[in-house]
């Protein structure tokens, strides 16, 4: 009974999708929206990476909502896992000396790589989300090398909330000085392709990067510190 229902469902979905697939033609020209973005972005926003300009400026509210969703996920995870047991030193789990030493060398390098990625987000591929993910991976490596290490929750909360606050403050500054919320023209646009250009885009993307990095690290840290017990 259940299986036949499942097969009917999958077949219906496949038929629906086949409709899209059969009518799809590889396009030769950009559609209207993309043509507007591609041709007007260099003069309006001044970022060399068009995707960055769309994420940060044209669709800035989407990004704000997205960061809020991630923040809520972190918050709920911290709330669900709130009854943490005492930090038990797990003597059975011993990592090798090579991994510990290697982590000491690699973690600062990964952090610097993450910062590089989101500072150069408006010039090269990359940006706040990618840089934040790299920072989160560095924290994961830190916790893998020594699972009993205590990563400060206070510091992460501080970074997370401060960068979120400044993100919104820059958005409101755009409302006052320039054309609208999260407008990047509160600073001069500068020369296309140089590091200090594109107005507020590098600043906003750096704050997004710090926020995403702190949130991902917070999720991983919270889950790592939880010890399952029988009591709820």
């Amino acid at each position, binding site marked *: 009974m259940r299986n036949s229902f499942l097969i009917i469902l999958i077949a219906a979905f496949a038929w629906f999708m086949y409709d899209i697939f059969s009518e799809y033609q590889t396009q030769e020209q950009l559609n209207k929206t993309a043509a507007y973005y591609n041709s007007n972005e260099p003069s309006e926003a001044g970022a060399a990476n068009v995707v960055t300009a769309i994420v940060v400026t044209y669709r800035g509210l989407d990004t704000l909502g997205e960061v809020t969703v991630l923040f809520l996920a972190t918050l709920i995870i911290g709330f669900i896992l709130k009854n943490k047991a005492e930090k038990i030193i797990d003597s059975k789990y011993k*990592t*090798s000396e*090579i*991994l510990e030493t290697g982590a000491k*060398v690699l973690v600062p*390098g990964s952090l610097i790589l993450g910062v590089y990625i989101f500072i150069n987000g408006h010039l090269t591929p990359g940006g706040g989300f990618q840089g934040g993910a790299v920072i989160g991976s560095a924290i994961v490596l830190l916790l893998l090398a020594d699972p009993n290490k205590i990563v400060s929750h206070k510091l992460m909360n501080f970074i997370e909330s401060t960068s979120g606050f400044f993100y919104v403050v820059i958005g409101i500054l755009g409302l006052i000085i320039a054309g609208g919320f999260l407008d990047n023209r509160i600073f001069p646009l500068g020369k296309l392709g140089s590091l200090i250009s594109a107005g507020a885009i590098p600043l906003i993307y750096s704050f997004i990067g710090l926020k995403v990095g702190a949130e991902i690290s917070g999720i991983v840290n919270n889950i790592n510190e939880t010890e399952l017990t029988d009591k709820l």
Partner: protein
Amino acid sequence: MDILQIIGASMVLIGSLVLLIASIGLHRMPDAYNRIQVGTKASTMSVVFVMIGFIFILPSWFGKFFTIMLFVMLTNPISSNVLMRASHKKGEPLSSKTVIDNLKEDEEKEELNKNNENGTF
């Protein structure tokens, strides 16, 4: 064609040949430990060769290629070391031709020391 480009292309060729030999070795090696060793050693070396070749071809990208090389040289041995330790702890069998197992001896020695300490006190 520039002389630098020829040097760079031959370096890339050497790197890919090393990788090819490693992939043959991956099939011929008897157990997991030997396979991990072949894969790590050869792939690290081949990435180093390929990156040096790229530096010759595109000298202006020196910093980026050098950083990639450094990262691979640091991370590849560490990760394979961790993998090997994990499989050893899980009890993956060694090949029948293996002569010495230092990690096991070390662990046994440690266990012995711990028991002795407990016994004396």
